[in-house]
């Protein structure tokens, strides 16, 4: 998977035609084989752009920053990224007419160690679902989507309750409350996060296990039915916490019980919590 040339050409063309003010893509990080996002505003810099299987970070995150708001943006999106973009569009955070979207038929990206990311081996929507232009040939088959349940949550769910409790206690204990997870999440765009409450009875900002538990639980519930499994959060976490567990757990519950689509696959679909069906399971309620 290497679309460096195509993306450089597209960016150059968009700048030449005056269609964009900024192009969001990837460049080499300058010290090893890995890449970092880059916001290109000067057409001369388009040669910096690259795209390979090292293009990991979900660039949709940049659509919520000062540098892109109220500008015309060209952006590269993989399958998962495009789903978050879809949600951003649905939730009115960006205007479609301000975007030029280069969609990728993604064959999966690799982590720093060169191994295919877990979310890519599990990927159910590899091709960008929103784009102005697609690169590559479609990876997903034409058949209906089969849900792949994350192996980690299956393994954990089988463990006894006490072990699970102990495992997650360790997770929350190692959280340092830097909130990098939420800042790197493209869908955490709130002006002020609900976790940052200042009132004493509502406060949860201290770096205690219980506050971390609270914050991460609330966070994952706010992303339930919306998380697109891009793993920006895990990439940003300085403690390398397995944050995907919470999201994948919610995703599987939603998928299995409400027969909802995966987040962001369908345009205008806001996620499971913003609609209901009369047939939703009722058996857990007395």
């Amino acid at each position, binding site marked *: 998977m290497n679309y460096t040339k195509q993306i450089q050409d597209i960016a150059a063309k968009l700048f030449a035609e005056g269609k964009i003010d900024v192009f969001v893509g990837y460049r080499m*990080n*300058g*010290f*090893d084989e*890995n890449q*970092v*996002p*880059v*916001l290109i505003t000067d057409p001369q810099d388009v040669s910096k752009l690259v795209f390979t299987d090292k293009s990991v*970070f979900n660039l949709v*995150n*940049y659509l919520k*920053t*000062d*540098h892109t708001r109220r500008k015309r943006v060209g952006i590269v999106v993989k399958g998962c990224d495009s789903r978050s973009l879809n949600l951003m569009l649905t939730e009115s955070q960006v205007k479609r007419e301000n975007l030029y979207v280069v969609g990728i038929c993604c064959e999966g990206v690799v982590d720093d160690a060169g191994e295919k990311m877990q979310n890519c081996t599990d990927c159910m929507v590899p091709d960008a679902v929103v784009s102005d232009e697609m690169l590559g040939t479609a990876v997903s088959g034409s058949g209906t989507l089969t849900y792949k349940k994350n192996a980690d949550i299956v393994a954990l769910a089988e463990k006894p309750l006490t072990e699970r409790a102990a495992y997650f206690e*360790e*997770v929350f204990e*190692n959280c*340092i*409350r*830097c*909130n*990098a997870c939420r*800042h*790197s999440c493209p869908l955490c765009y709130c002006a*002020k996060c609900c976790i*940052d409450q*200042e009132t*004493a*009875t509502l*406060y*949860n*900002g*201290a*770096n*205690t296990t219980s*506050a971390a538990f609270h914050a991460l639980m609330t966070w994952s519930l706010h992303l339930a039915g919306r998380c697109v499994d891009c793993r*920006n959060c895990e*990439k*940003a*976490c*300085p*403690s*390398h*916490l*397995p944050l995907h567990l919470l999201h994948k757990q919610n995703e599987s519950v939603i998928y299995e019980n409400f027969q909802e689509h995966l987040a962001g696959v369908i345009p205008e679909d806001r996620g499971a919590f913003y609609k209901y069906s009369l047939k939703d399971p009722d058996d857990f309620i007395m």
Partner: protein
Amino acid sequence: MSFTTFVTDKAGLQKFYEAVMASRETYAPVEKFGKFDFKRVARLSECDPVSPIAKTLSIKPLFFPRTAKVMKYVATSAGTDVSEVDEDPLAVKRVILGAKHCDARSLQVLDKVYNWDYIDTDYQKRRENTVIISTRCDKADTHCFCTSLDYDVENLDALDVLVVNGADGKTYLEARTAKGEALLGETFTSDAVRVTKEEAAPEMKKQYDAFAASFRLKMDYKEVNAKLAKIFDTPEFENVSGNCVSCNTCAFVCPTCHCFKISDEKVKDTGVRYKSYDSCNNGYFTLMAGGHNPRPVKYRRWRQRAMHKFVYYKERFGENLCVGCGKCTISCPVNISIFEVVSQVSAAAGNRQ
């Protein structure tokens, strides 16, 4: 005062570590989810004193906790009882194993702000009661640039006991302070050879030179200090902060960042006041009650961060508020390097002038 230097082998070093652990409260890097954080350990097998620098969080939280209870209060109609926190759990006699040189240096930098005007006695107590054993790195990590900054890495006296794995296969332990000397004296029982500093010097120097030669990043901090001081209004800050996602993790892992927030948490009639880390990259950092915010946009906050590290702190306290550990770059989801930022900004500003 002259300090002792021991020469021993790997086994001798292990024995020393075990003796330390047996006699003192010991903190060392413990791996969880592939990342090392300094935690209390009882056995050497629980920790890794030579954890890779790229995967190790700093020792700062052992002196400046991520969250500290400031006080507890119980408010009833009978009155408000304010009680100070119970015994500070971190102010006991303790030893830190596996601290990096940059970690040790960070404490020297932080000493300045904590001992300025109002003295942070808790911090001081923790400093006094802690012996830092630091193994000198063999090789610089991709993002390290400690040798480019305003401190002498080779002769760093912020650490108490220096451990060097010599190229000759021997392990050198050098006390650098009285605290270190005392610890070595009390706990070092192996049949190691006690040598003079001068005798150990050539081998130690050789190791240092090899280490110093392994740095990818090099800069002239004086030039950076000088140039940055003049260019508050450069647009370059907007460019370098472009792909920052404002995630704040740089400040949380930085061994020298020391901004904090004070906040209350209350359950029933009992409240606790916490002091927790905060980051100047946070948009709410300077937001005032009336709604005025002097640094409302990202590049201004980035400028504050860079300038505080390389200009303001230097002006005020004579030190760079950066030890060149590269932890921020490693933790950054988009690998923004403070090194690159300050070099680029100062270079670009230099070009313009």
